[in-house]
């Protein structure tokens, strides 16, 4: 009985934010007279938030490992500027700029990770330094100007859509087909894990609840796909984000490295004495986030078709907020990829919804602040009760 209650409570924690997200979406759907869920807007929402989600994936690992990275906004801006200079000023091929940017991002992350992991500098300080350094270097590199535009192929990174192989008028059939394939896969995997749990004698939710949950998930996926299909189909960037979410979910839940990161954040000393190379692991989480920040920076630049010195200002806060809203613990060891994604979507939908309604940027900030505080407050309270 106690385990059932435990399970329920954990589920509430896991699904609590999802329910909040849906509530927020319904709220804005109503107050915007249906603008929120219009195909164009949904597509926009994805494009606007893709880079936050991408960085949140890396930030999640860093936060689970018990660290923080304040530099991602500056690093994203710096890499965008670097790619812009390579393509526009130096006239290099866009693939070179892309690969160069990603490599530079990983290198920057690695450098910060080195100071945190091997030199024992608190991550708050090391990455605060990084935040200042790369914001400054962005200004230096761009000489205070915006640099653009970019080759069309590079722009496609963010503003392109997947090709439609069916060519059906008015509806992007490929999108629907992809959505359907994915739905089937998801249900199959859930079914398999449920069978496994039953086989090993663990508690599972009732079959009714299982069916309702899967139906809801499939309905949501197909609905979004349908919306997108009736506009231009799935954006390229959504595919990227989607693949990354799958990879990182897999890494955090199924792999040795993932398990070790959670152990490191849960109790670094115990992990070390269990043979986990805690320094190297910490180092890798920062290098990984550097890489993802670079990707985010490239996508952001591609979307605006210009690299600006102001790009990515305040991103780090949105990203960190997303991870914490998603249920990660500030002391490390707790947090999920899906939670972080939901956290990012909560922030994204609120930004988007409030902009449509016409709430000023000043109030938007304040309201987002309250949401962050509230989300973490409930999370902490739930945890203390448990």
């Amino acid at each position, binding site marked *: 009985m*106690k*385990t059932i209650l435990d399970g329920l409570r954990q589920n509430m924690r896991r699904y609590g934010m999802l329910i909040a997200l849906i509530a927020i979406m319904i709220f804005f759907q109503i107050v915007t007279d249906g603008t929120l869920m219009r195909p164009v807007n949904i597509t926009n929402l994805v494009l606007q938030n893709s880079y936050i989600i991408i960085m949140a994936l890396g930030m999640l690992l860093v936060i689970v490992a018990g660290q923080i990275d304040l530099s991602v906004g500056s690093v994203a801006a710096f890499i965008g500027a670097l790619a812009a200079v390579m393509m526009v000023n130096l006239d290099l091929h866009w693939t070179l700029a892309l690969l160069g940017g990603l490599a530079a991002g990983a290198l920057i992350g690695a450098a910060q990770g080195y100071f945190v992991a091997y030199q024992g500098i608190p991550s708050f300080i090391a990455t605060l330094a990084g935040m200042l350094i790369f914001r400054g270097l962005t200004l230096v590199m761009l000489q205070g100007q915006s640099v653009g535009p970019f080759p069309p192929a590079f722009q496609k990174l963010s503003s392109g859509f997947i090709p439609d192989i069916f060519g059906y008028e008015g509806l992007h059939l490929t999108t629907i087909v992809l959505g359907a394939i994915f739905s089937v896969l998801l249900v199959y995997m859930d079914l398999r894990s449920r069978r*496994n749990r039953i*086989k*090993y*004698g*663990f508690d599972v939710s009732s079959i009714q609840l299982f069916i309702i949950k899967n139906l809801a998930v499939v309905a949501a996926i197909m609905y979004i796909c349908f919306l997108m299909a009736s506009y231009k189909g799935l954006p390229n960037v959504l595919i990227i984000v989607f693949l990354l979410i799958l990879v990182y979910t897999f890494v955090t839940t*199924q*792999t*040795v*490295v993932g*398990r*070790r990161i*959670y*152990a490191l954040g*849960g*109790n670094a*000393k*115990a*992990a*070390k*004495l*269990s*043979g*986990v*190379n805690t320094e190297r692991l910490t180092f890798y989480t920062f290098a990984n986030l550097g890489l993802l920040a670079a990707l985010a920076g490239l996508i952001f630049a591609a979307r605006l078709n210009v690299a600006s010195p102001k790009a990515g200002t305040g991103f780090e806060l949105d990203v960190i907020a997303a991870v914490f809203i998603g249920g990660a613990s500030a002391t490390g*060891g*707790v947090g999920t990829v899906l939670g972080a994604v939901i956290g990012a979507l909560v922030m994204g939908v609120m930004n988007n919804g409030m902009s449509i309604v016409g709430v000023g940027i000043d109030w938007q900030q304040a309201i987002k602040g309250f949401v962050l505080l509230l989300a973490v407050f409930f999370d902490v309270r739930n945890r203390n009760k448990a």
Partner: protein
Amino acid sequence: MSDTILEMRDITKEFPGVKALDNVNFSVKAGEIHALVGENGAGKSTLMKVLSGVYPTGAYTGDIIYKGEEVHFRDITDSEKLGIVIIHQELALIPLLSIAENVFLGNEEARNGVIDWNATTSCTRELLQKVGLHESPETLITSLGVGKQQLVEIAKALSKDVELLILDEPTASLNETDTEALLDLLLQFKAQGISSILISHKLNEVTQVADAITILRDGATIETLDCRRDEITESRIIQGMVGRDLTHRFPERDADIGEVVFQLKDWTVYHPVHEGRKVIDNVNLTVRQGEVVGISGLMGSGRTELAMSVFGRSYGRHITGTALMHGEPLDLSTIPKAISNGIAYVTEDRKNLGLVLMQDVKNNITLANLNGVSNGMVINEPREVVLTNAYRDKLNIKCSSVLQQTLNLSGGNQQKVVLSKWLFSEPDLLILDEPTRGIDVGAKYEIYSIINQLAAEGKSILIISSELPEILGISDRIYVMNEGRIVGEMQQANASQEKIMACIMQQDPRKEVAEA
């Protein structure tokens, strides 16, 4: 003299799954030194935590009557107001603050929140005089040795107008000179009318200074002995502490001892911070297949440091000497290498160093050998569940499932999880550091049985313990350590508490040179 200052009646305190105190009665007369003795886990510290308000009123049942009035403490501040001050075994001083700042921490000499440093310093100087510590009040705590830190703690207690001073194992980490000074101080306090409760394992100290001795065993009061009336001998106290038949505390053991498996030669380790200080000095030892080897010694004798320096150099610097496994030199330069070379170390601090408490039983068991449940990259979770369930059955871990958080397990079950973790890493040499600390008697027996079973399966076991009966009860052979060196070695058949203590008490040859 004979007025009762404190009376604790029918105190019962339960933790989930364990009754730590069961109707304990305890009373202290004004101006006496009252010793509280008992084995580890007998409930001494718990009783003192009840008395000092660490466990607030409501968290236990029973009455506390102090100076004739029933008292209900909500926290330590409440008890300190009435002059009850406890000095814990782990000193609660802040290393980077000065003596004066520490003495008046939480009790500052201040007016309207502004500290009067002159008053603070002069009061501290007076207090230091009283406890016989000749240091400037401005000295930082870090620069003091443990003995002097203990005196600072006492000065701090005096600053609170202490009437009943509780000392929890105050001499555990003190050398003999410091111990003598401390006991003298207690006698001085007694002359000034301050009552003391002394918790100690060192029975010679107890018989030396105590006016009365209360013995606890398994959470219950066994008896109170009056030292003013009768001459109380140490063996009389031990009789009360142990009480039960000694043969039943440890499972039968049929040793089947084979070849030498692990060997340390000329192992020397320097302190990680203090340059030039040897923590381990030229240690040589061997462990055979299927053998349980005990390492005995006082706290601070270097036992844990020895174990950790072997376990992937997780302690110390400039480690020299060789380690051999089956006659082959071992690379122990990192913890992963030590583990893959067949060494496992069960730490004495299982909550901070042994477990990831927020994670479940399963994840904790596989943490040290994730390759055993994965293809090197991806974890095979069903296999993990089956394997960890097998350990749950084998070691009789009481949990709702292997998916239960380890945070909510009892100490004994937590220890079994840690043991499982290291068994799963399939070691040749298993080092156990205080494996039964803070575990109740029943679980201890289980742990001993597991140790025997492992030895019977051919593992070599090195066990560190501060409890002499434990070392004597489970080891086949015993090394005695003192000040970083092996000072004695004996087979179980001819070992005894007296012989071990005699080894420890042997004069340090370096000291003799210094004194000569």
